[in-house]
């Protein structure tokens, strides 16, 4: 178990190194391009040469990569050309905001998806099953920006119950709790269906297993069969999938944040990308990958804990 964890940790370090090189290389323009980009197309060759000298751009790529990597590791994430601030000064607030949104969405989504998935999967082909299945296919198929449009036209424009933006500004017309309702709903709608289908599929599979028959023919009530014998087995396979949603919620909420003007991490990534703010995009990408790889490891570990067949082998 420990060996496995260390192995995965080593692979995380390896992945992060490669990813950092890729992220660096993706924005590694030729030095001349870089200078032109900063000084504009009407700069003279002389100006550009001087800038390159100043920025050390004439040095070999790998040297500049290691310098950048060293800076990143020592906590210097560079300077954001969009926000006119060190990246360090913005990224943590933005991460915090996104984490709030993600945590609420996760807390709503997980119990609901387990409840729906288990209820649908325990009697395959029942009316309840078919209703939940089709509903979850439909909700995951609505792109977030489209469901944002639909929900906004009902609750914001039609009924006027909720605000159409979630800028998190305190003292605004709407309390922060109200501002969060629509973003959370959009995330949960999009994500829920997918997880429900995973849980359902796993539950359907478990219900056909002979040990469920053993439990029934032992004289257990259906309720006990589900709760004591089926549930835990049915959660093994979807566990990883559920944890991976953390990853989606932290980095994949770009769209939701764009729809509701939410000052989060995803929004920051998008805005900096649209304005060619290289340092911010690089830092954000590294964080995104780190979160994604870490949740994968957490998922694998949890899977092992849940499954005695792997735990004791």
């Amino acid at each position, binding site marked *: 178990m420990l060996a496995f964890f260390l192995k995965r940790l080593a692979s995380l370090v390896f992945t992060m190194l490669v990813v950092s090189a890729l992220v660096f290389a993706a924005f590694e323009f030729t030095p001349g391009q870089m200078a032109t980009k900063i000084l504009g197309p009407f700069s003279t060759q002389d100006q550009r040469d001087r800038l390159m000298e100043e920025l050390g751009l004439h040095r070999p790529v790998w040297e500049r990569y290691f310098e950048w990597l060293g800076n990143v590791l020592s906590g210097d994430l560079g300077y954001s050309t969009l926000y006119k601030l060190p990246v360090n000064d913005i990224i943590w607030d933005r991460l915090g905001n996104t984490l709030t949104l993600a945590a609420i969405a996760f807390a709503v989504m997980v119990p609901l998806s387990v409840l729906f998935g288990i209820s649908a999967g325990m009697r395959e082909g029942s009316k309840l099953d078919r209703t939940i299945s089709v509903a979850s296919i439909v909700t995951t198929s609505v792109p977030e920006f489209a469901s944002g449009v639909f929900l906004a036209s009902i609750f914001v424009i039609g009924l006027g119950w909720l605000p159409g933006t979630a800028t998190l500004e305190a003292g605004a017309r709407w309390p922060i709790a109200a501002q969060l309702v629509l973003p959370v709903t959009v995330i949960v709608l999009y994500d829920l269906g997918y997880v429900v289908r995973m849980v359902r599929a796993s539950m359907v599979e478990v219900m056909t297993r002979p040990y469920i028959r053993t439990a029934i023919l*032992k004289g257990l009530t259906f309720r006990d069969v589900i709760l004591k014998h089926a549930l835990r087995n049915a959660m093994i396979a979807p566990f990883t999938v559920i944890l991976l949603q953390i990853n989606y919620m932290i980095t994949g909420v770009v769209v939701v944040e764009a729809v509701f003007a939410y000052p989060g991490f995803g929004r920051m990534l998008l805005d900096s990308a649209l304005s060619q703010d290289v340092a911010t995009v690089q830092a954000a990408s590294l964080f995104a990958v780190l979160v994604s790889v870490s949740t994968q490891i957490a998922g694998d570990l949890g899977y092992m804990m849940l499954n*005695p067949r792997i735990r004791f082998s």
Partner: protein
Amino acid sequence: MQFATATETNSRPGAGAGKPPVLELRNVSISYFVRAGEMKVVPNISFKLGQGEAIGLVGESGCGKSTVAFAVMQYLGTVGRVTGGQVLFEGKDLAKLSPAELRALRGRKISMVYQDPMSSLNPVIPIGKQLMEVPMIHFGENEQQARARALQMLREVNLPDPETMMTRYPHQLSGGQQQRVVIAMALMAEPSLLVMDEPTTGLDVTVEAAVLDLVARLREKHNTAIVFISHNLGTVVRICDRIGVMYAGELVEEGPIADVFRNPRHPYTRGLLSCIPTLGADKNSRPLTAIPGQVPSILNRPKGCVFQPRCRFAIAERCSQDPLPTLSLSERHRVKCVRAEELPSHDKLPQGIEAVAIGDQPVDAEAVLRIAHLRKTYHQSTGMFGGKGYDVHAVDNIELEANRGQTLAIVGESGCGKSTLAKVLTGIELGSAGMVTLAGKEISQIPVEDREADTKRAVQMVFQNPDSTLNPSHSIGYVMERAIRKLRGLSGREAKNETSTLLKTVNLPLEFASRMPRQLSGGQKQRVAIARALAGEPDLILADEPVSALDVSVQAAIINLLVDIQAKRGATLIFISHDLSVVRYLADYVAVMYLGQVMEFGRTDEIFAPPYHPYTEALLSAVPIADPDVHQRRIILEGAIPSPQNRPKGCPFATRCPRKLGPICDNEAPPMQTTASGHRIACHIPLDDLKKVDKVVVA
């Protein structure tokens, strides 16, 4: 309907006089409702089971025996339903019980033991908790009481170290141990009826023998009535008082074991008995008789007798009468055949007769295949970066030879290395050390891709699993023509002609060329696989458990086909099997393997008579024989087969050997002792002592 009149007479004399039978099925019909419509799987079945009595229901796959078992449990899934008649348990109609009453009965009064114990136990709950659940629901016991009861039960089913066993998860147990746990769980509440659905199918034969022995003992002790479902007539003989033979959903013959086996009156029962190879007969003394034709489809059941289309005694006008009456031959022996009383007496197979030495065998038979000191070692890496790890010796220092035109059988239980050996011979795996020479050419070091065209042609294989042997995307004709083209270089018209010839050789009609594998039955697929192997006119045919997945009546036909083809073509056959009866029937030479080593090798008649290797002796004793008049010495092997990575240092069989001499067996590899005729036994016990035992199987 007809059974109803006869049922009154067949309860065990004296058993529970006055009390209702434990179980009674009265004209029960069971159907599955599927998209195609109603499938009347069991049209009408009746039987009774007295207290403490055991009935075996036997039949081939799809005959409805498991359906009957689940009907007794009132558990037919969402598509199955009892559509008529009554299932009475201690006089109560189970269909009339409320769900709560039914729950109170299940696990308490009626419990079940299943096929495939591994998947019948919950993988994420420790054994102890699963056992304790039973008294906790049914007797309202607290954890402590339930725990004591569970421990007691684990002891009763002979599981070592019950305390530790309680904390184990199912996957940490061997198959035999798992089945003992399931049996313990079923008997926890001292039920009056135990339903066992193929409880030993999938277990190794020595493990099966120990489990059957345990069931017989517990049955005696607890006086539990048993419905024992099996496809293997031999296991029924070991457990049951009565036997019911099922065919296409009907109980065609039912009676006490001795009556039915000594005097089978239904042509199907006779057919079954004559298509099973037994330890006493071989291909030279008597060919197996396969039952022609196929089981009719449920949607297209013939009028009157269901067996009529395949029956050689059928007389159209009499056998088509509907409904067909059931005849009571004696008080307890019933047969659903109008001609039961007029059939000639049944010739029982010769049993336990000295095997005929291979007489017509040329004295200086030429060894085509020689295996010398062959090893196959897999490296299993564990540890963090794959640094550590251990070696699994799947095949360890094997020495064998096979003669031209003869059959060498390799027998052994799971993990003995027989299939690995086959993979090395085919070149799908490479040998780790040693040599394999085919007609003088070394082949164990050349992967199949790099073998010379002629070697590929010369070595072909027939595989075990009929469902995976043919590519589901390719038609039979395509498969055959492809094989003919690659192995013989023929194409076009020539390939088509050759396909027809080969299909004819394996007794398949020509139209099959245009069929897809899913349109074929298991036996037909195996025939195609044999035809495919024959495409290159091979010198050496490997057959890895080619009949183990087939029903006995089909099995006989395939075995006969192999014998026939080999005789005609003079090819050498290596037949890998776990089934000693089949091996006895078709082999000229036999090698007995255990944990990667050959324990005994010799002519078939020598293997089946003393001197025996102690392992062979135990194997022979374990084989269930479908004849109550044959006596086998009982040698029960305790413990499980060690996993190949924990193989004992000395003799691999030392951990379970009932004749173990002492530390020498644990520590030193046994010497290979050879008799004058070339019979080889790897054992520390001197040959003379090994000769001093009686035959295991005596008629």
